[in-house]
């Protein structure tokens, strides 16, 4: 770094971000995922106008609000009201503007009489609600949120998500950093994955987060590939490929492929695996997930005590897993994993997200709600 022509010994320089290019339209919401140090925060700071890129350009239109840390600029000795005026002032609003928004802020923060007490007396939940209420009191054109939603209880998360959705409907663009698949999928239509300052993926939140999960589990010698499925979703396959899945199918009681399964019907998951080279052990794991990627059930053959010891190169094994589908109507996917032990973190031979997909429909059961089928016995006495 040179400054006024004076060389100043620079702490070792490195490119935190390079070759990043994306566009967010009004009302669009994009998520940003990446490991620690991938450059997410730096990217947000540049968009927020706190740091400047040393090369490249950021074009924005409208007002930007960034929630990089909840409660920045708050002082414990001041009351909630005083802090509100101070923090909103720091965002560039004047007294009358803040007064106009006061009702909205107190309504969201739900502090009651505490609003006029010093905020050091607040619980952390109360401080968070106030901070979020102030930060979002004025609808910005671009809202930047850095994992702020990961904190707080379910009620707070629900409230803040609700508010963000309302902004979105009015045309606010959202840029959200999060590793929470549910938050990303429910708010964002698109996600970007950063790794070592590079943009490695730009796609649906599901595809990007599957890739991200493969990335954090990735070890030396492992490869990650992705395939686009018929319905446009992305399948991520990672692992060392020392053992591979040759065939996978979901079959009904008559051994016919089952794409659609009735609630409560019994199906069999058939997986044929082959060891590419001699391995210490081989375990098959599977997980049944819903549309949002939440796991409903998962287990493996290590838990069931059926580890295949020392398979030789070329050995194959066929696993048959029969279970009743106690799920509510909806679309589900099955993820498969071949590994050496209980966890794919030991040795991940092959990990395949979205290996199979099936729909569950309610054919013969009384109507019910929810993602699980728990056949009830109801007695009524009168």
């Amino acid at each position, binding site marked *: 770094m040179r400054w*006024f022509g004076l060389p100043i010994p620079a702490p070792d320089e490195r490119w935190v971000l390079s070759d990043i290019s994306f566009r967010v339209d009004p009302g669009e919401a994009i998520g940003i995922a990446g490991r620690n140090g991938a450059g997410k925060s730096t990217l947000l700071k540049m968009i927020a106008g706190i*740091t*400047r890129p040393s090369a490249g350009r950021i074009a924005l239109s409208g007002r930007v609000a960034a929630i990089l840390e909840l409660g920045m600029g708050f*002082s414990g*000795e001041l009351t909630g009201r005083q802090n509100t005026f101070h923090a909103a002032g720091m965002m*560039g609003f004047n007294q009358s503007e803040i007064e106009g928004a006061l009702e909205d802020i107190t309504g969201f923060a739900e502090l009651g009489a505490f609003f006029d007490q010093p905020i050091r007396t607040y619980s952390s939940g109360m401080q968070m609600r106030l901070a979020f209420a102030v930060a979002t009191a004025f609808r910005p054109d671009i809202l930047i949120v850095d994992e702020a939603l990961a904190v707080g209880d379910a009620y707070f998360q629900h409230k803040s998500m609700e508010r963000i959705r309302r902004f979105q409907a009015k045309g606010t663009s959202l840029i959200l950093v999060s590793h929470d698949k549910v938050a990303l999928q429910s708010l964002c239509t698109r996600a970007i994955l950063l790794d070592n300052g590079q943009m490695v993926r730009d796609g649906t939140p599901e595809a990007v987060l599957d890739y991200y999960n493969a990335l954090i589990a990735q070890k030396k010698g492992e490869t990650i590939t992705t395939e686009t499925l018929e319905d446009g979703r992305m399948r991520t396959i990672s692992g060392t490929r020392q053992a591979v899945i040759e065939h996978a199918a979901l079959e009904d009681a008559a051994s016919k492929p089952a794409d659609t399964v009735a609630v409560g019907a019994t199906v069999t998951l058939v997986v044929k695996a082959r060891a590419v080279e001699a391995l210490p052990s081989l375990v098959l794991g599977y997980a049944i997930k819903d549309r949002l990627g939440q796991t409903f059930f998962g287990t493996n053959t290590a838990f069931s005590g059926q580890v295949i010891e020392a398979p030789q190169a070329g050995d194959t094994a066929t696993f048959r897993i029969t279970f009743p589908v106690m799920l509510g109507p909806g679309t589900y996917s099955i993820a498969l994993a071949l590994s050496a032990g209980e966890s794919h973190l030991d040795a991940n031979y092959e990990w395949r997200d979205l290996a199979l997909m099936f729909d569950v429909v309610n054919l013969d059961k009384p109507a019910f709600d929810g993602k699980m089928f728990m056949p009830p016995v109801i007695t009524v006495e009168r």
Partner: protein
Amino acid sequence: MIPAMRQSFGLRRTWAYRYFVLSSIATELRLRVVGSRLGLVWLVVSPLLQVAMYALVLSTVMRSRLPGVDNRFAYAIYLLAGFLAWYPFTEIVTRCVTLFLDNANALKKIAFPRTVLPLIVLGSAAFNNCVMIAVTAAAFLLMGHVPSWQALWLPVLLLANLALAGGFGLCCGVLNVFIRDVGQLVQIGLQFGFWLTPIVYVIDIIPASYRWVIGLNPMFWVLDNYHRVLVYDQPPDFGKLAAVVALALVLLLLGRFMLRQSQAEMMDTL
């Protein structure tokens, strides 16, 4: 389409933050008062005690040296006028030197024009000084010293003093982010500055052949005018006043230029 980086600068954007500057000054005061019984009284207690101490210790040595002031409290009056100028200067410089380091967290997390930070310091120091002026005026009256109409120059002198302190502090503050030694140097500089400025002594006690050294000290230009209008009932020395204003403007512009130049690097260094 506005390039994001253009937003963080320009006086217009700072002007948009005027409410924040005012409310921050009020907040600072509130934080100082909160939980303390005497509250704002503390603003003046320590300077007054210091004046009293010097008055006690040095008055016998100094009394005969104040020609033209016919008052047995002449030295105390001289001291008060001097401290009235010296206090805001040191307060502003001391705070500005660590300004960006102290606010590193906010600077890294919130996008706001950085020029508001020195403005808050200046405003807060100006308020403190106004309290001090009121107390000094009361003390003058108690000691039987009624300044002439020349004292009306005081606001002009104060503004020039604030500008000088702000400009100098801003330059040091930016430098201190990159070279932390600046903070230490400035502290030592202020200690020496106190004794190189005729605050507790009159310039006449310096041997004539060395007086030019003091004459090079901008704070002497400031102090001399304070003394003229408050103690000696004379109009300010306009040459010195012009010099202070000119130097203040140069330093302010330099500070602003340094702040602009260092924008990106400062964020990386903080």
